[in-house]
């Protein structure tokens, strides 16, 4: 393989993985903007989306084989169920754990979402065990060739789904009343309240949207990589790093951050060391934090933080 092809190959792989990071980062940003909370359980939504879709799609043995499920729905229906149930989980998380503690300190809120991540991860372990799971590729067929580099059909799906989601979200936030209401809440929660907008209702909505987007990320990636119950944490951290790189409160930045992180990882794994691939994102995190947080990011905080939500 020529150097040029190799570079394109790494780039394509990076963009594919980066799309997933971008979606998770968007999930972070959506919740953070409206509520000022960083949800450490974010990555678990991706795991749940994938696992639920798989369970609906194929015969599954849950609870260490004590519970057999054979729904065998078609893939689109299974995926839909994955997204819907995960969204409900997200909404439940807000109602049961976040809303009752909404006046708590940041430290408490971090611990609560960490606790939530543990509960979700433990429940996933109990239900699905430690086995790796995979969905079949959405459309089987030979991979595409781009300048000699290979792009699998599933990668095309990943990138396309990300692109479509971005368009939908853009439309939602900028063209619908509800979307603008969410933006208003992120911008100035106090003024939003004076308009008769309920910040708690908006926070619930943010959790719903965020968990749905992250669940979709989990579902589109699971045909190309195995999903295990403990992937949530790594996905959370990568999504968070992507969000930070993009400025944390900026959706477009989150997408760019996600894709650049994916590309960086892909090149790092290819040229430096595949074993330390996961360390790359944290080194990026440390650098970004050191360089930028001393300055404007820290002072600004999110709207929710200012309002004490």
């Amino acid at each position, binding site marked *: 393989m020529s150097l040029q092809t190799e570079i394109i190959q790494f780039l394509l792989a990076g963009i594919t993985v980066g799309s997933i990071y971008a979606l998770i980062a968007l999930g972070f940003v959506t919740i953070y903007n409206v509520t000022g909370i960083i949800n450490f359980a974010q990555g678990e939504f991706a795991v749940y989306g994938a696992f639920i879709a798989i369970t609906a799609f194929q015969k599954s043995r849950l609870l260490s084989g004590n519970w057999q499920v054979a729904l065998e729905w078609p893939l689109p229906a299974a995926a839909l169920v994955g997204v819907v149930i995960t969204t409900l989980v997200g909404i439940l998380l807000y109602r049961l754990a976040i809303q009752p503690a909404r006046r708590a300190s940041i430290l408490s809120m971090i611990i609560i979402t960490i606790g939530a991540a543990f509960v979700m991860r433990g429940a996933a372990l109990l239900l699905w065990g430690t086995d790796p799971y995979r969905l079949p590729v959405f459309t089987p067929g030979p991979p595409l060739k781009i300048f000699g580099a290979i792009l699998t059909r599933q990668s095309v799906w990943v990138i396309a789904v990300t692109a479509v989601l971005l368009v939908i979200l853009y439309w939602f936030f900028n063209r619908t009343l509800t979307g*603008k*209401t969410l933006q*208003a809440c992120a911008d*100035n929660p106090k003024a939003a309240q*004076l*308009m*008769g*907008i*309920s910040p708690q209702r908006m926070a619930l909505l943010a959790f719903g949207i965020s968990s749905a987007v992250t669940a979709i990320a989990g579902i589109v990636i699971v045909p190309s990589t195995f999903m295990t119950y403990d992937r949530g944490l790594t996905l959370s951290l990568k999504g968070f790093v992507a969000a930070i790189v993009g400025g944390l409160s900026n959706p477009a930045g989150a997408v760019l951050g996600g894709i650049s992180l994916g590309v960086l990882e892909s090149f790092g794994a290819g040229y430096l060391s595949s074993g330390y691939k996961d360390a790359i994102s944290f080194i990026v995190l440390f650098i970004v934090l050191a360089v930028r947080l001393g300055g404007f990011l820290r002072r600004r905080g999110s709207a929710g933080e200012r309002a004490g939500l």
Partner: protein
Amino acid sequence: MLEIKNVSTSYGHVEALRGVSMAAHPGEIVSLIGANGAGKTTLLNTISGMTPARSGQILLNGVEITRLSPEKIVNLGVCQVPERRQVFATLSVRDNLTLGAYTRMRGRGEPPIKDRKTLHLDIETIYAMFPILKQREKQLAGTLSGGEQQMLAIGRSLMGRPKVLLLDEPSLGLAPLIVRDIFEIINCLREIDTIILLVEQNARAALRVADRGYVLETGRIVMAGPAADLAADPAIQQAYLGKQGR
């Protein structure tokens, strides 16, 4: 009418309002004046539910609104123009106005907005009052000048068709010439036949534009009466600048 009966409000340990009673009627402008920290803004926040009263009653046309959530109070037609304007800086001028009608579009405020056309007409009414906002329609509110933001904040509140309009320090931080424009606008608001409560540090201007006034000092109403009488009272100056110094 708006009635406030013996209302007290605290922030944590600090009692910001101590047994305040007052009333206001549609079509009149009532000014609340007093030195910094006298409790003027707290009074507005207590009416709008942002800082709930600890005791006492607030009645709007005979219906008790004390301790309802701010959202419910907005639904009943109490709209506040907050201190320092608080426009949605990252949204366009038009979107800011649209969100001002949020409760009406959700069918909870009166009269409800059922279609885009009604909304459009309402926004045009605001543009007629503030032509500059129409010019800036697509601009982000954060890019507006202070005076324009104040107009937008007032326009946004009017989109809610308020029965009670609470104006918190509309002249704060604005250049003197702009302050004049803002007071001109407040004077015109009398025509919409709403109850208008005006909190102002510029006591002289506030009393000139108002029909009646209340003077607050450390959370209590210490003087009340027709605005013209208050304006002529030397005790006002003492309320602001203290007893005779050395």
